[in-house]
């Protein structure tokens, strides 16, 4: 675990102690701050929230949103649900995977991008859709992906 994370996590635990159903908000706070939920923090989280380590483990593992390893600098989520399929997202998926040289849940070699599948972004009127960090993009094609990744590489 990266230095400084311990303190940050301890702070978040403090802020959520005693909150009704506070485990999910806490996990979100941790992931928002450092990008993932380090397994090394389960014990502290469990103690702070009055749970067993197994419970924390179970919750982190249940939800697709939570990550246990550090992601790349950016997250690219490609929608693969029906509306986007109807507009050709499978071709887009293949292209993105090849471009980044990774499969889903993988991180590109330069650590710039972690690729994730997502099942609907609520942008189905503008399928196919992807989400880059917190920015939704609609009617995405290969050119959109190239533009996005080229700016990253240039940066």
């Amino acid at each position, binding site marked *: 675990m990266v230095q400084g994370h311990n303190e940050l996590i301890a702070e978040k635990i403090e802020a959520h102690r005693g909150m009704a*159903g506070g485990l*999910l908000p806490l996990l979100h706070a941790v992931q928002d701050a450092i990008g993932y939920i380090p397994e090394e923090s389960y014990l502290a989280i469990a103690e702070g929230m009055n749970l067993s380590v197994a419970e924390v483990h179970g919750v982190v593992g249940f939800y697709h949103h939570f990550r246990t390893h550090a992601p790349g600098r950016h997250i690219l989520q490609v929608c693969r649900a029906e509306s986007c399929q109807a507009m050709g997202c499978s071709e887009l998926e293949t292209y993105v995977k090849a471009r980044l040289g990774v499969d889903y849940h993988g991180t590109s070699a330069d650590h710039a991008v972690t690729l994730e599948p997502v*099942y609907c972004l609520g942008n*189905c009127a503008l399928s196919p859709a992807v989400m880059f960090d917190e920015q939704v993009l609609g*009617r995405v094609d290969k050119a959109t992906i190239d533009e996005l990744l080229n700016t990253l590489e240039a940066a």
Partner: protein
Amino acid sequence: MSVRVYVPCDSGALSMGAERVAKAICAEAERRGLVIELVRNGSRGLYWLETLVEVGTADGRVAYGPVKVADVASLFDADFLNGGAHALHLGVTDDLPWLKNQERLTFARVGITDPVSLDDYLAHDGYRGLRNALAMTPDAIVQQVTDSGLRGRGGAAFPTGIKWKTVAGCVADQKYIVCNADEGDSGTYSDRMIMEDDPYVLIEGMTIAAIAVGATQGYIYLRSEYPHALVSLNTAIERAQAAGYLGEHILGSAHTFHLEVRRAAGAYVCGEETSLLESLEGKRGLVRFKPPLPAIEGLFGKPTVVNNVISLATVPIVLDKGAEYYRDYGMGRSRGTLPIQLAGNIKQPGLVEKAFGVTLRELLYDYGGGSASGRPIRAVQVGGPLGAYLPESQFDTPLDYEKFSEIWAVLGHGGIVAFDDTVDMAKMARYAFEFCAVESCGKCTPCRIGSTRGVEVMDNIMQGKQVSKNIALVRDLSDTLLNGSLCALGGMTPYPVLSALNHFPEDFSKASAIASETALADPA
């Protein structure tokens, strides 16, 4: 007086570059020494025209779209600030047939107002329902919602008033209002639009629900895929609270209602109400056995109203205009309106709020304009990933809960996803099993094991292996899922699978046909 220019801040519009368009318009106005007032409104729901820019003129708001950054200078050249002619000029927004022929009740303000402006909300009839409710007894509020005929818009269509009555009838030290904002269905985005584009109407609906059943705490369980909705809800909650519409002594009354947004974490099954409650309690989203119903033992074991965003956001207009006004729309036992979401391979996708009774064909062709690809529409999936696929021969079915049941289909949350004739329905059936396998909470065997088995069997069918034997196996598996699942994730996966198989059987024997052709051609 400066001219008002409207550029949406809805995430759909943003996904088409609305932010850059807004900046470009401001920069261009400044360069030309023109003073404009930029309003960031919600989306009108004509998504194929996003970024849809509107200008306030003496004749009403005039629309231009779809506007790209590159069009901005030419719009100024064409004097668009006075509604001037331009290739992207669409005319007075309210006169566009696509909007004019809708019945926007729940979506009355969406796209018109600045979503987080409380003044705008109040100026457009906001909080009139709550004011009426405050002058009524809780029983009378529940009665009014019951009389309106409003049924759960999350998909199961249970009468909202009756659900509230159950909660109101419980004696407890604490009750909760939980808004189900998990909107996991592909092809649906009406909840998102309400939350991003008119958040106060949801807050008002939840407040009325709280007063009706005697709850003092509310939660909005919001899917993590909606970061824009999170910001707009939190801003609106803060402002409503500051103005006395939330918190203690609401508008000087004896009522208290606190409201908080909680983020989900990307599990589709957590849209199922009991899984959602587990998640809100900080646990894994395992589905609970029912009974007890959440209305009786819900969040932290207390009586809880769980309602969909649209159900709750429809309550204010019912309380404002009366039960009869709402009930007068619709057909049969489906009263009022449904915000329909056109998606997939469709030329003019967007939000169409119509009274129940409109047919699929009208929606797909009159509103949707046919497919985006220009090829024939071959299948539509209605009601999300657990909804049936309908072939063209069923396009004349009116949108009505009971009419859909009669053809073994569901309306669900009102999402319609169109596919053209390049779709492979065997692939879609396989995907339905795959989705169930990815999202299963794992509590019961048919869903957990059956879905994975379904994927394998579909793979064999798609490779042309023992097709008729394997199709029989798909039917068997579907039977087990239908009858042996604890919740509708496992229980409804057979809808897309069997409807694909029954209506498009040719797609399931394609591989074997090709295989036998090659066998004939190459008798080696």
